[in-house]
């Protein structure tokens, strides 16, 4: 790519700052820690999906030689949870267990084998209760309650929002279509199993090292449950060996390790087994969806009504937010003048679902993009043109009050359509081959924090050493996406030095300012902005002294390549180190801080907290597939994908995130399923939970579309999650193009394709998917006044 930017670091394909350690095997992940006198902890888990704990006796376990502590729920009675509205988890269940795998007791012993032996000696008497394992069962068995704190039966949350009068919108439509879809649950399957090491010292202070995406929230949960002042707790997030949302909650094993260390006075390590990681879960919600859309003849949407039913599992986790997310982002791609959303999350006796890459949005995006594909065909419209004609405007508000800043979706569409030869292939390839198209959008960081406060979402401190070394401190945690590197690139760019001159210190609640965590694709935008602010303050000091020394006005000075020089006379320059020393002599010890808080959202209704973001990324995708009509086997041959990143701070990392998102999207589209039989996980192993290998991964052609966004550092927007979203619907649409059957249920397995083909051959509907949604009443919708541009009169003018 030709270098057209004025930057020396930003936009360059530099190695990540942690690349060398990771490739040398030197990176220390949580389970690699080994402290003197360390004990090993193990959790006893419930073998019942739903049961009352009648009695527990730990005496035999305590008596086993090598066992140092045994604890139960009585030792940790305070409840916690990631969201303030659903503090429904216990580190060890006290009265009741709610899924197979729910922890009930824990042991610390000299080694893992002894701890394992001790677990067998803990006697627990359960009184099994009927297990609720599906959305239908949860709704039908309203007396058999999994929790007591929610209002009705097993409905954790039911929301209903209406923006404008949708019935009026449907009345204006030339064509109305309804569809039902199901998106199966899946899990993150990070290669690294969760692990935590706790060390409680005689000074009464606790340190926890953990593989977590959210050290700040873990810090808060520990303080709450352990009833300790946060100032006496230090949480260090170790480099995370894969997160994808699965390490974003405070977990039982973290709290238990801490408690066991406090009781024994020795460090305690707990590493989950792979099977336990499947039970810890917090993955993609299974979601049943119904969508009804009214359109004009040209495909302009007049109204949309969307219903979602989320199978939440046994605890709240992020579920309330997930529920809102299944309805929030439908509006940010195509113009929707009237919109109604009804969403419901139910409790079931299965491991809790939570945020997985795309958090609550891949499911409705799949439904929406397949639904639109069907509408285009019904109307005889080109599916690309239909979408492209009705894209949201830049610098506009959606009907549900989300603020769109930049949107380069049109450029993304044009890129993939051209590169893939879509127009020459669509409906023209031989039977068995097909292409499919879909678009999507995702947020660049949640506009609001998880707990209500007015403080920044991200903070950065910088200190400069006399030798020119720069240390950047930030609470963010690198989960592989490259957030440590982004801090180095941003600061290096501004100070005019190299990333290798910078030491990045992150994710340590004692040493680093708060960053809320690696979730919601927030880190580049928020830490980047905070780092820019801190670096600019220091740069100002350096330019001040440099200007004085060189007798050049400050605004003519440029900092590049470890020098500060006069833009009009580059020979007039001083080195970065010299400037640093002059500045320290002049101003004292050099340091600065920066922080970032997203702009306030214009939406003021209840529920408006989920969806707002400083900016939205956009993605367009074409999938080409081969479908074997005799076996139903779907082979994705190639994906073309264009992503509106705003500005790419490092194209290598952007491509890596796009490719990884495509991979995870393909896994969900084709084979991954978190499934249960009577509440028991059917396949909690790496062998039977099907994660695609090199042989299933297709070629990916990635296009990075850059148009700087005013809210991002150097104009950057997100890339970690958005590119997953269009992949499943593009594949589904391509399967239809290939063999003429609609698979309205993810994953698109050979069995389903074959069934649909057989149905079609019998003259029936060539479709596989759900046919009904639960007959359940949602609350009366909160009707929200729409932004001025969506007031009916203006809409009418706009479309006339």
């Amino acid at each position, binding site marked *: 790519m030709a270098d057209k930017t004025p930057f020396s670091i930003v936009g360059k394909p530099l190695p990540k700052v942690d690349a060398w350690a990771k490739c040398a095997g030197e990176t220390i992940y949580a389970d690699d820690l080994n402290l003197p006198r360390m004990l090993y902890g193990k959790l006893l888990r419930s073998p019942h999906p739903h049961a009352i704990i009648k009695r527990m006796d730990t005496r035999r376990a305590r008596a086993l030689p090598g066992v140092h502590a045994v604890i139960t729920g009585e030792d940790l009675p305070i409840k916690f949870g990631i969201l303030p509205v659903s503090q429904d988890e216990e580190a060890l269940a006290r009265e009741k267990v709610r899924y197979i795998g729910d922890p009930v007791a824990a042991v610390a012993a000299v080694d893992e084998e002894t701890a394992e032996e001790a677990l067998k000696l803990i006697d627990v008497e359960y009184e099994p209760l009927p297990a609720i394992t599906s959305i239908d069962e949860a709704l039908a068995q309203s007396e058999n309650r999994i929790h007591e704190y929610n209002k009705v039966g097993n409905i954790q949350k039911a929301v209903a929002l209406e923006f404008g009068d949708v019935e009026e919108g449907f009345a204006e439509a030339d064509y109305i279509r309804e569809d039902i879809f199901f998106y199966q649950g899946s899990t993150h399957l990070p290669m690294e199993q969760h692990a935590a090491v706790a060390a409680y010292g005689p000074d009464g202070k606790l340190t926890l090292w953990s593989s977590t995406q959210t050290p700040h929230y873990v810090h808060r949960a520990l303080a709450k449950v352990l009833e300790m002042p946060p100032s006496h707790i230090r949480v260090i997030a170790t480099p995370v060996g894969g997160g994808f949302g699965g390490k974003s909650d405070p977990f039982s094993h973290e709290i238990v390790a801490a408690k066991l260390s406090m009781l024994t006075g020795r460090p305690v390590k707990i590493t989950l087994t792979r099977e336990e990681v499947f039970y810890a879960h917090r993955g993609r919600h299974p979601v049943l969806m119904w969508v009804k859309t009214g359109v004009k003849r040209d495909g302009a949407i007049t109204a949309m009504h969307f219903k979602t039913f989320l199978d939440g599992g046994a605890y709240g986790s992020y579920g309330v937010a997930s529920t809102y997310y299944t309805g929030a982002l439908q509006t940010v791609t195509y113009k929707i003048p009237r919109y109604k959303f009804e969403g419901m999350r139910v409790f079931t006796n299965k491991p809790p679902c939570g945020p997985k890459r795309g958090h609550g949005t891949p499911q409705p995006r799949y439904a929406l993009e397949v639904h639109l594909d069907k509408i285009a065909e019904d109307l005889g419209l080109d599916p690309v043109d239909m979408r492209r004609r009705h894209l949201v405007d830049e610098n506009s508000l959606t009907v549900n009050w989300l603020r769109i800043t930049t949107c380069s979706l049109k450029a993304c569409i044009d890129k993939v359509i051209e590169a893939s030869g879509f127009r020459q292939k669509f409906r023209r390839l*031989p039977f068995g081959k097909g292409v499919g198209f879909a678009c999507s959008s995702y947020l660049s960081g949640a506009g609001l924090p998880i707990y209500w406060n007015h403080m920044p979402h991200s903070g950065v401190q910088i200190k400069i050493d006399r030798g020119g070394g720069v240390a950047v401190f930030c609470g963010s945690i690198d989960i592989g996406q490259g957030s440590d590197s982004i801090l180095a690139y941003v600061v290096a760019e501004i100070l005019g030095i190299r990333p290798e001159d910078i030491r990045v210190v992150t994710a340590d609640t004692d040493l680093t300012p708060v960053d809320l965590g690696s979730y919601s694709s927030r880190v580049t935008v928020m830490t980047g902005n905070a780092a820019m602010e801190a670096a600019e303050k220091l740069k100002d000091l350096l330019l001040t002294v440099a200007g004085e020394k060189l007798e050049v006005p400050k605004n003519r000075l440029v900092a590049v390549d470890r020098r500060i020089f006069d833009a009009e006379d580059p020979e007039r320059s001083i080195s970065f180190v010299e400037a640093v020393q002059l500045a320290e002599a002049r101003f004292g010890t050099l340091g600065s801080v920066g922080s970032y808080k997203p702009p306030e959202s214009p939406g003021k209704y209840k529920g408006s907290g989920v969806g707002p973001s400083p900016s939205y990324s956009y993605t367009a995708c074409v999938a080409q597939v081969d479908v074997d009509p005799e076996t139903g086997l779907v082979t994705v041959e190639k994906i073309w994908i264009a992503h509106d990143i705003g500005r790419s701070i490092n194209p290598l990392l952007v491509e890596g995130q796009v490719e990884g998102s495509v991979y995870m999207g393909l896994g969900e589209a084709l084979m991954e399923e978190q499934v249960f039989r009577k509440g028991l996980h059917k396949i909690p192993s790496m062998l*039977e939970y099907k994660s695609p290998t090199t042989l299933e991964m297709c070629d990916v052609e990635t296009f990075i579309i850059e148009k700087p966004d005013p809210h991002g550092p150097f104009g950057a927007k997100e890339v970690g999650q958005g590119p997953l979203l269009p992949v499943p619907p593009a594949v589904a649409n391509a399967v239809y193009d290939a063999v003429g059957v609609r698979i309205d249920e993810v994953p698109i397995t050979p069995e389903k394709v074959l069934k649909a083909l057989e149905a079609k051959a019998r003259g029936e509907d060539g479709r596989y998917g759900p046919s009904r949604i639960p007959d359940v009443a949602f609350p009366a919708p909160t009707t929200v006044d729409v932004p001025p541009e969506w007031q009916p009169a203006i809409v009418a003018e706009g479309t006339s």
Partner: protein
Amino acid sequence: MLRLPPFTYYAPARIEDAVKILADYGPDAMVVAGGTDLYPNMKRRQFEPKIIVGLRQIRELHRINGDAKTGVTIGACVTLAEVSQHPAILASYRGLARAAGLVANPQIRHMGTLGGNLCVDTRCNYYDQTLFWRQALGYCLKKDGAICPVAPGSQRCWAVTSTDTAPVIIALRATLRLVSPRGERLVAASDFYRDDGIHYLNKEADEILTEILLPPIDGLKTTYWKLRRRGSFDFPVLGVAVALAQEGERCRDVRIVTGGVNSRPMEMTEAERILIGERITPDLIERVAQAVYRPVKALDNTDFVPLYRKKMAPVFVKRALRELLGWPIQETPDGHTSAAG
């Protein structure tokens, strides 16, 4: 970290010594070759032998001798990678090389052996689970339980044969050499397997499989087709081995053997009878393929829904035969062909 239960380990250098240790310890002892099947099972506590007899040190078990004319003898500890790459096997017993090369993944093929794969434990997703999981289930007939959760009304275990190489070995009419304190015996590969998920081998606990004897190839062409979700890692949930000898346009001999369904590899004798001696036509191939549908039994205890696996058996048989005949694998209106599984 999942760990192995404690045991005592012997690594004899001679078959006689291995046999003696087995005889001495009886059912407490198990043999191990590559370890890629036994050790995971032990970590999940499906087996907890007190004694492990490692065969790796026994040199003679690592040899491959012979050629296509006289027959090839393969030591039981020859790795699957070696089988899949050996020139004589690749040239003349291609179906075996292919089956061995499709087992699990490259690492496991470097560790796992042909003997181990032929003896691989039958699999079932109610059984191949950790102790915790099986306890939550209430156990199963194959280990610690009283009923088979796959078919609770039945009196037997429905765990599935999961060896990739056995169907080919049977199709080749290979013979296996077993050594025990009572001496050695030769058993036809087809007689080595039993239709029982628990006692799935006709092999006594103190017998060691030492050699696989492939007969002269005698004009047979062989192939193996495998159904699984991914191109790597996964066990077969349907395997089809076909050996075919032609005489002009006629079929002189054919053997069709399935794996990955039922509890043992099954020779599809009815389908074979339709083909043997006949002039081979696409229609006849279609009839042959349909004849395998009925005998294939697939239950809900592996990946893929059972009916799908059953439906794929005729498709795979047809494709395997077409491949051996040098015909396009798949006939579609536009002549579109798909690659081998």
